[in-house]
């Protein structure tokens, strides 16, 4: 991914993007995921408008931004659930929009995804939900599967609930179960779509700790989408700030937290005064 020279906005003259320096600060790791000038519209709603973003290998990256800026749409592009109208999404050197269905299904085995509400299968109990990827993609026996599933469920504090159906669980429990399922195959790339929404502050902190622990253990590219700054401070190694379908600024977390960009500064400090209003 090309590094934009600081202070030279790539979209000069476009009044809609006054704070989008588009600055991509260099990271110490190579890129695992790249968005190259991605545009995506749903009817008249232009969600991504020339998004250029790189997410580094072996780091926990966070995509931060106000609601409705296209963060979840980014995740769906990465796993090939949505395709860009223009531009390219590259994962480990593969152009996702150009892959054939069979190759895409194959590549998806590299991914673990935690969806916003957990996306558990309603017809299976908790244990079977977490065991599903292992049964689908590995040759492991039921004993070995049970060992892995019980370990993952105990990590997220749900070992007592493994017989329960998803509709018997609270929103937070469903999210934790989705987390266990996302990690059960120890994937190379793990995507978390707002893992903190609907969780109490203590469980959010514990979940963040768990993300860090599992990442330290397994490595890989972890991408967390959130607008919770506390979570960002706890786990982020790399941050991309997204607004109006484009990157405002992107780079190592400590550099972003020290950014001079008024939008980035306001967003990362959570202040009400600044360029971001209610509109």
């Amino acid at each position, binding site marked *: 991914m090309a590094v934009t020279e600081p202070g030279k906005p790539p979209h000069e003259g476009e009044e809609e993007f006054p704070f989008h320096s588009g600055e991509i600060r260099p990271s110490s790791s190579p890129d695992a995921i790249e968005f190259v000038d991605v545009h995506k519209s749903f009817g008249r709603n232009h969600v991504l408008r020339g998004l250029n973003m790189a997410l580094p290998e072996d780091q926990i990256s966070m995509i931060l931004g106000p609601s409705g800026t296209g963060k979840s749409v980014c995740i769906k592009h990465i*796993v090939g*659930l949505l395709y860009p109208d223009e531009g390219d999404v590259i994962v480990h050197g593969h152009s996702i929009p150009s892959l054939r269905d069979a190759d895409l299904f194959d590549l998806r085995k590299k*991914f673990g995804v935690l*969806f*916003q*509400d957990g996306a558990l299968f309603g017809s299976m109990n908790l244990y079977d939900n977490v065991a599903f990827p292992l049964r689908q*993609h590995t040759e492991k026996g039921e004993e070995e599967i049970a060992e892995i599933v019980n370990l993952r469920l105990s990590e997220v504090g749900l070992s007592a609930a493994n017989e329960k159906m998803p509709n018997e669980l609270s929103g937070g429990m469903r999210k934790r179960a989705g987390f266990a399922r996302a990690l059960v195959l120890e994937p190379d790339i793990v995507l978390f779509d707002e893992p903190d929404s609907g969780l109490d502050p203590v469980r959010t902190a514990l979940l963040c700790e768990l993300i860090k622990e599992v990442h330290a253990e397994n490595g890989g590219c972890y991408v967390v989408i959130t607008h919770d700054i506390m979570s960002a401070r706890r786990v982020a190694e790399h941050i991309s700030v997204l607004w109006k379908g484009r990157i405002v600024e992107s780079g190592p977390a400590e550099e972003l937290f020290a950014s001079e960009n008024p939008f980035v500064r306001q967003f990362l400090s959570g202040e009400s005064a600044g360029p971001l209003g209610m509109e």
Partner: protein
Amino acid sequence: MVRSVAERAYLPTRNLLEEIGDMMILTGRTISSALRPPYPYGGEFVSQFLFALRLCWFPLLISTVCICYAAPGLQAANFLTIFGALDRLGGFFVLGAVREIGPSVTAIVVAGVAGTAITADLGARKVREELDALQVLGVDPVKNLVVPRFLALMVVTGLFDIYALLFGIFGGIIAELVNSQPLGPFWNTLFANASTTDLWGSVLKTTIYGAIIAIVCCYKGMSASGGAEGVGRAVNEAVVLAFTAIFSFDYVFTQTLLATHPQILVIK
């Protein structure tokens, strides 16, 4: 003014054409997924088949008996009585019940009962992101969800047609008995006019109805959006579209069958 009207007409027409195109693509993908190995959908096929059977058998029984007793039964009997030709009711049942009413009532019941259940189920899974999760876990939803429903509805609708014909003719028997007629002439004219073409034509048409219902209902479910309200809207649209597609196909099929088998035009 003209431009505004044109714009209002253009967008819904374009959306409808896009949906029809998407459904054609889904049909092609479903057929190719069904034929190409592996075949992981056996269990789901049996479960969907039994599900449709359990939901539809009773409403279909009541519907076919009642409509065949009322429409070609009582109404046609009233008309035939004028000519003293009530014995012709059996022949009329071949035209009415076997060729049209049996298949149509079967399609209406299957679409209204099993089809809507499919749309609601897939729609709920879609809005809960279960379908996205399946895809991300490397499971093809067309092969694992659409194919078994497509095959199950085809088989169940074809079999239900025979069931509907039997109970439809039972409605005709009631009509004869209510008019104090012996059943001999009814059976005589029924079998004189019925042919194997009528039977396979009826079953084939209904089997294709099953395919249409499955594709429309799966498509609408899998493209639902906007939470619970969106699922309700998808179910409503699925029923409307399925009925429209079924009756349009009925015209094409009937016209083709009559043109290619002119002997069934002759009333004996």
